[in-house]
């Protein structure tokens, strides 16, 4: 099998705001639409300070657990659920999406939002997951305990990947650094041996 060398990433930099954000980027469904929930939170740095120039993307299954295949994330028609959204943080480091609750993609699977994080000062994109907490539709503690990723983490790190319910949806904070820093993911076999250096 031929194998091509990967193109390295680089920081998104400070000036992405006139290029990457777009009208309706964070509204996967119109706020207030039937079934609409809010996924929101803050991005903070190693000093606990807000990161006002970050960009988050989410990608998710629909409430039935189906992975969307429809185009239209950049020009939303208001009816098609595409599963993709993008939100830049505000001055307080806060972001917010209007979306639907993701369902399990197979019976018993723990539903989550796949999340990508970009920021000035962050040299490459980071990938993580925001799991629905126990008590969400179809999710209990056993569901989360059975998840392969969550089960592989110590409790205090695992908690960084589980959103909290807030009545209208879920809160998911991203901490780029520190004792409670968010678990970020590698999918290509490189992460496990990366060491803590």
């Amino acid at each position, binding site marked *: 099998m031929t194998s091509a060398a990967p193109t390295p990433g680089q*920081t998104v930099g400070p000036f992405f705001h006139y290029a990457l954000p777009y009208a309706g980027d964070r509204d996967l469904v119109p706020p207030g639409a039937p079934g609409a929930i809010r996924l929101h939170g803050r991005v903070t740095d190693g000093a606990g300070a807000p990161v006002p120039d970050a960009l988050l993307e989410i990608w998710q299954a629909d409430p039935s657990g189906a992975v969307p295949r429809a185009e239209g994330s950049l020009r939303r028609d208001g009816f098609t659920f595409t599963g993709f959204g993008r939100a830049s943080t505000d001055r307080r480091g806060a972001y917010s999406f209007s979306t639907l609750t993701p369902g399990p993609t197979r019976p018993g699977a723990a539903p989550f939002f796949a999340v990508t994080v970009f920021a000035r000062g962050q040299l*490459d994109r980071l990938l993580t997951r925001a799991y629905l907490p126990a008590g969400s539709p179809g999710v209990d503690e056993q569901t989360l305990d059975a998840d392969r990723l969550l089960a592989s983490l110590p409790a205090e790190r695992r908690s960084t990947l589980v959103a909290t319910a807030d009545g209208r949806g879920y809160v998911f904070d991203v901490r780029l650094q520190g004792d409670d820093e968010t678990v970020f993911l590698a999918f290509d076999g490189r992460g496990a041996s990366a060491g803590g250096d």
Partner: protein
Amino acid sequence: MTTETQADLSAEMATIAQDYTASVAAGAPVETRPRLDYPPYRSSILRHPTKSLHHADPEEVELWAPAFGPTDVDPLEADLTIQHGGEPIGERMVVTGRVLDGEGRPVRHQLVELWQANAAGRYVHKRDQHPAPVDPHFTGAGRCLTDGDGWYRFTTIKPGPYPWRNHRNAWRPAHLHFSLFGTEFTQRLVTQMYFPGDPLFDLDPIYQSIVDPAARDRLVATYDHTVTTHEWATGYRWDIVLTGSHRTVRESDVEHL
């Protein structure tokens, strides 16, 4: 305002480069991505994860990327020189290349986003305080979809280098910002394309955060006279390889962060 000089930063970068060369010579793996912890880029100090990335097996949703299509992108968005009713100032150029996956397969019909400074090194962004002219005929943002063979193509203006505040007299090499999606969400990439022969490469902590010289070189486009068009635009070729979870992992791909 920092009083650190370019000499201070260059010395730091040289030490990191020497340590890397020595570690590879001693058998450490070649690095293929930027270091998230690269102190010469000062803004990274409080914004890099301190814990190693955690290996995960992709789930169903991560094995797919969002779909983009003709309803999302107008073909005219690939021409950054026609957006504002007049010709932008600067060197008109075509930038084109193929988006491929780790096995060399084309990434078809996927979204490519581009943003950049104008010919004077100034972004439209309100936070860009560099006292260089704003070009009323140039915003510096475009999009396209790759075609059935993975090709993208933009017509734009060559950006200028610009100063930034990492240290005293810090200047970024001229670059285009690219945002790409693969066929899996795990392939998501934001990066920068540079121009061959730029004298600022050795001085720039963002470019140098990719400590492996061969990996760094993969961000530099090639001047391609077959892309250059008669009495109209110069041409650059830059191919992009996205890797996610499906490819065969080689020893040389193992990295330390």
